[in-house]
Structures are given as C-alpha cells and as structure tokens.
C-alpha cells in the first residue's frame, strides 16, 4: 500500500468519525475493569434514544488516572467522567450536548492532566487500540512513510543520535549509539527485538503502551529495522499481559494486511516480519542476553558480555534490543525532528518519561512528564500527594534494582544522572510512594526475596549471595540482628554488586544499600544490644 492509498484511507476514516456529533471514549485498559459492561450499557442507552447515527461509543486506551477509573471521555468538549459504572450510562448519554453530569465530572483543570507533557502517551485514551484506521487517521505511520520515502538509514540513525534519546528500559544507554553499532555491524542477517518483559513489580508503562497504542510500538520498530538493516523482529511480551498480547497480535495482523509489515513495505525495497514471543514468568529475561536465550527457546540464563547483542545477539547475529517505551518514542522524534526532542528535558536526559505512580499516593496511575521535573511536582502536584493524612517517607524508583529516595530529596530534578547520584536508578519508570506507616526493612526484604526468587542461579554471588542477604534481612525484620550481621550484610552487598554476572545480581543490593545510606537508623533500631563479653546471638 502506498503513501497516497494510506492517506486516502485515513481521510476516509476521519470523515466517518467526523460524521458523529459526539464521541464517547471508554478506557478499556486492564486498569479499568468492567469497561466492557460500561461500553455495552452506553451503546444500549444510545440505541434507546435512537442516536446511533450521531453518537459513537468506542473503546480507548488508558487515560492514566487509574485511581479514579473507569474513566469516560466525551468529545468534543473534553468532558471526563470518573469512576463510571454501567448504570451511569443513561445519564451520560442524556447529557450529551447539555450540561455535563456533575456528580461524575473530573475537574477540567486537574493538575494530574494539566501538568503532564504527553508524547508517548499522546494518543493513549484517544484512539481505539484495536483499530489501525484510528491510528492512521491520527497521523500514525506518517513517520514511517517519511522515513521510507525520504531518509536513508544513516539519516535515521543520525536523527535518533541527535535527539539524545536514551533507553527507557532501565540502564539509559544512548539509543542512537546502539542503533549505530548494529547498523555498522557486518552480517547478512540482523535481528530486531522489542523488550516487553516488564518484570519490575510496580511498573506498568509498557503494558499500558502496548494495550493503548500498539501500532506506535510497531511503527517505532519498523523504523528501527529500516535504520539498522534488520529484516526479522521479535516482540517479547510477558504472558501475564494477555490483553496487551491480544491487541499486539491484532495490530501485527492489521499492519501486515496494510503492507506496513511484510515484503516491500509500502512499495519500498524494505522487508520486515515481526513475531510475538511470549515470556513465561522470569524477571531475569528483562536482561537482554537472557531475553535472547529465551527467544531462542532456552532457559533465560544471561551470557557474559562482551560480546554485546549489537555485535553477537540472536543466533549469533547483530541484534538491536530496545524496550517498548523506547520504540514508542521513535515516531514522534521522526515526526517532530530531533531538535524538538532534544529541547525537552535536561542536559543529558532528553525528552519525556512515563512513570507508574503507585503505593501510598492519591492519584495512582500513569503519567508522562518532561525529564528534569522534580519528584515533588510528580508526587504532590500531579500525584495529588499522600492520602489519609500520612506523610511521605520515601520514593522507591527502579524496583528491585533501584533504591529508596528519602523525602529530603524531593526537589531533585528527575534524570538518569540525578537518580543515580542518589543511589537509585531511573529503571523502567516504576515510582512507588512509601509513607511513614511502612518499614523500610520490610520493603527491602520484599525486594531481596524477589531477587532471590528471580535469580537464574548461574553465578554464585547472585544465587547464594541473595539468599544469604535475604536471611540477614529477615533477622533485622525479626529484631534479632547483631552488629556482626550488619557488617556481613554490607560486605555481602558489596560482593553481590561487584561480582555478579548480570544486571539482576549487580543491582540486587541497591535497595539495601540505599536504605543503609538514608535509613540506617531503622537497621540499628532492630539490632539486639551486644552482649558484654561480645557473644554472638544465634
């Protein structure tokens, strides 16, 4: 299908949409249960009033404010309703073109929406994730056509390099540099992988992106494949995300039918096939070499690096691996230009980042903000602060690989560098808010249990070390720890951090180390007093 055909198809679909006086968009993500019943009720209410030709009820992707979901959006007018139930349908439909239903209304100037800067999530909640025409009508696949008709692969790589985009999966490696390495690598076969193994408990950006705008991820992947010269790609998705998998399968099928995937894409000489590979519940598969092992059908055991996947990856071929959010950033960069992206964010952390706000925070949900915004703005302005009159104690970022940042540092601008300096990491964007009712030891022990159970078992420091650290943390939790235990805890964390084979082990001690740094008193408070003769407590 060529450019003109796609444009005609998009225009045709837009005409159809414009034919309706009112659009009712219902959030149909995992975070808004009951949405099917709501959609059915709304359709019934529309039919009862015989307004089928004037009102279109559609499912949409995630609108972000899961705390107040299910959310229903009326357009035109940008009227958003919160915690909608099926029996609200009649009132909503009756109010179309009239005064909005006050009891359901979300304040239009809510900072949660007003303070965000949506780039990756721009179309999330605005289009039907199961309709390629919706994506096309919203300008989707335009970036791909720009690339295919006017840019050489080197131009694309240079543009991504100039944008300053860094990997959104955790480590923050410069995306353009990775692309350049794979593009330069020699080999008649190159592969492309999308890492959708969002295993960090407390993070759900990638699930939401895949559920809301699967085509944006595909478009980013197709552009990447063109840029690096890959003709086969895999999307590795957690089996725990059935809705994301379903929508992705559909998206791939629709893209294939529209010649956006397959042979001679859009009349160019460029071929690409994409396949889905289901994860099966192993956090370590988020590590790129373990993920490659898993795609090859094996135990997800990390390989020593170097060689890096960019040189020797899937089946020994040069392989580009980026995560879901990274790929979703590509179409806007191509569309708006590298300079536009580079102007957002901080000196070394460009663009916007999606965060999952969870834990003890009022507005739990998904937000997208420019890099460099402070934690305070995210938590108190956008997130609405801490509920039930409690006080913020710490913010946990980066999940089991990250750290706990105490309330004192709330004014820190969020960037890869600043979070690292504080002993945490950006990670994939999970932000768990902890109030003063939680014990840091409990939180840290939880993460260590996670790492212990998710360790692949290959290298000794991670396999046996995390188990010993977990045992020590249990002693702290049970208030049986001694000074010797504290010393052993610190030396084991040092060992596991520096001697483990892969990122899982190397970062597993981070939650412990960051709490030893900021919340040491909690450890000391849980120690038994030393015996006068220096005896060790069993």
């Amino acid at each position: 299908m060529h450019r003109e055909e796609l444009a005609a198809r998009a225009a045709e679909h837009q005409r159809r949409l414009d034919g309706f006086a009112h659009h009712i968009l219902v959030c149909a993500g995992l975070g808004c249960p009951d949405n099917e019943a709501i959609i059915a009720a709304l359709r019934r209410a529309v039919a009862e009033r015989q307004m089928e030709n004037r009102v279109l009820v559609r499912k949409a992707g995630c609108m972000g404010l899961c705390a107040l979901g299910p959310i229903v959006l009326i357009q035109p007018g940008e009227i958003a309703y919160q915690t909608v139930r099926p029996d609200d349908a009649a009132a909503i439909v009756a109010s179309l073109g009239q005064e909005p239903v006050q009891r359901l209304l979300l304040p239009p100037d809510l900072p949660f929406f007003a303070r965000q800067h949506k780039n990756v999530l721009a179309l999330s909640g605005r289009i039907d994730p199961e309709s390629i025409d919706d994506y096309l009508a919203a300008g989707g696949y335009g970036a791909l056509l720009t690339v295919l008709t006017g840019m050489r692969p080197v131009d694309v790589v240079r543009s991504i390099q100039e944008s300053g985009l860094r990997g959104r999966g955790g480590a923050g490696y410069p995306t353009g540099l990775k692309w350049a390495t794979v593009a330069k690598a020699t080999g008649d076969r190159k592969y492309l992988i999308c890492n959708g193994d969002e295993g960090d408990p407390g993070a759900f950006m990638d699930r939401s992106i895949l559920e809301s705008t699967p085509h944006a991820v595909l478009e980013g992947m197709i552009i990447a494949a063109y840029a690096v010269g890959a003709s086969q790609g895999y999307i590795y998705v957690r089996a725990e995300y059935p809705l994301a998998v379903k929508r992705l399968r559909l998206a791939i099928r629709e893209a294939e039918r529209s010649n956006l995937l397959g042979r001679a894409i859009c009349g160019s000489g460029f071929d690409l096939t994409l396949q889905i590979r289901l994860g099966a519940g192993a956090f370590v598969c988020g590590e790129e070499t373990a993920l490659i092992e898993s795609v090859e059908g094996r135990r997800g055991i990390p390989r020593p690096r170097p060689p890096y996947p960019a040189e020797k990856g899937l089946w020994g071929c040069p392989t580009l691996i980026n995560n879901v959010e990274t790929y979703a950033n590509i179409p806007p960069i191509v569309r708006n230009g590298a300079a536009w992206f580079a102007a957002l964010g901080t000196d070394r952390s460009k663009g916007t980042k999606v965060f999952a706000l969870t834990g003890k925070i009022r507005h739990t949900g998904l937000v997208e903000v420019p890099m460099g915004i402070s934690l305070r703005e995210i938590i108190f302005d956008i997130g609405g602060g801490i509920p039930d009159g409690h006080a913020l104690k710490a913010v946990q970022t980066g999940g089991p690989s990250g750290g706990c940042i105490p309330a004192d540092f709330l004014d820190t601008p969020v960037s890869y560098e600043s979070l690292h300096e504080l002993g945490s990491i950006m990670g994939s964007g999970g932000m768990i808010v902890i109030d003063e009712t939680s014990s840091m030891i409990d939180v840290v022990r939880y993460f260590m249990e996670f790492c212990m159970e998710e360790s692949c078992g290959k290298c000794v420091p991670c396999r046996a070390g995390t188990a010993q650290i977990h045992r020590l943390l249990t002693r702290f939790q049970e208030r049986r720890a001694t000074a010797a235990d504290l010393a052993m805890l610190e030396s084991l964390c040092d060992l596991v951090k520096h001697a483990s084979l892969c990122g899982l082990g190397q970062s597993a001690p981070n939650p412990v180390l960051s709490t030893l740094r900021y919340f040491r008193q909690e450890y000391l408070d849980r120690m038994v007093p030393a015996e006068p003769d220096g005896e060790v407590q069993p």
Partner: protein
Amino acid sequence: MNRLRLATLWLDGCSGCHMSLLDTDERLLDLAAQVDIVYSPLVDAKDFPEQVDVVCIEGAVATDADEARLRLARRRSRLLIAMGDCAVTGNVPAMRNIMGAEAMLRAVYLESRPLKPQIPADGLPHLNEQALPLHHFVPIDLFIPGCPPAADTLFAALGGLLAGIADLRLDTRFGA
C-alpha cells in the same frame, strides 16, 4: 614464666579430636612441662575454672547445655580454639540439620522400629533445632579444621600459642 592454664571441652563430637591430642605421644610431656591442664575430659576437674588461658573445644553446639558450657568457657578464657571440623563447621553432627531436631528424634527412636520405641527425655539436655559451629555463638580466636586435625597440627597450634605467634598458619583443611 607462669605456666599456661589450658582447658579442653568436649561438646557434640566423637572425641576423635581429643584422641588426636593424645596422639601427640611423647610430645605431651614437653607440653606438660609448660601447661597446666585445668579442665578436660582427660582430667578430674568438675567445674570449668576461672582465668583459663587457652580452651580447646571439640564438637558442635547441639544442645542448650552445650551452649551454656561454651558461653561459660568463653567468659572464663582468654583464647578460645575451635578444635576440629565439628567445632569449626558443624560437620557430622550438623548432618541432622536438614530435618530438624524433632524429626530426627522421631526417625531414630520411633520410626527405625527399635525394640522399645520412645524418645528419651529424662535428665537429658534439650536438643537444639540445629547443631551449629562455635562461631555462631561466641567469638573464636583460632580455627583448626580437620576431622580430626592431625596430632602435628594440634601440637603446632598449641606450640605456636605458647610461643606467642600472632598469625598462626596451620597446614590443615576441612576433612583432613
């Protein structure tokens, strides 16, 4: 020079380490010239005395009584030596740790179909859940691995302590 006050203690072990100590043969006489053995299964003293210079402890800590004796020995001794693998690693006594005390007692006294199945209790110390090496309870000044450590090794260790060598390097290993 004051004669060194030496004690030896036998916890959960087979007494092999004490046998090894005796295996130093005629060198015992040299040793006897320099030390007083103030407490040991090899001598008559009933109670662990005060102000012991060196105590050599054989065996793992398997009961509450073992633990109490170990702690007393630690309080009353300047240097404490973990003598042999049971004291150092738990060794054979710790093999029961995979099942715990209760299950082991049942396995041995009830489930092995003895003539008179009953778990002995009267007058016996309480069995700890696990048999553990000494350093899990008290600080140790010298570890002498081996099952048992060779007589030469034990003699070298005591000789070294008598000579006041700070950094003793012993030629031994687990299971030696």
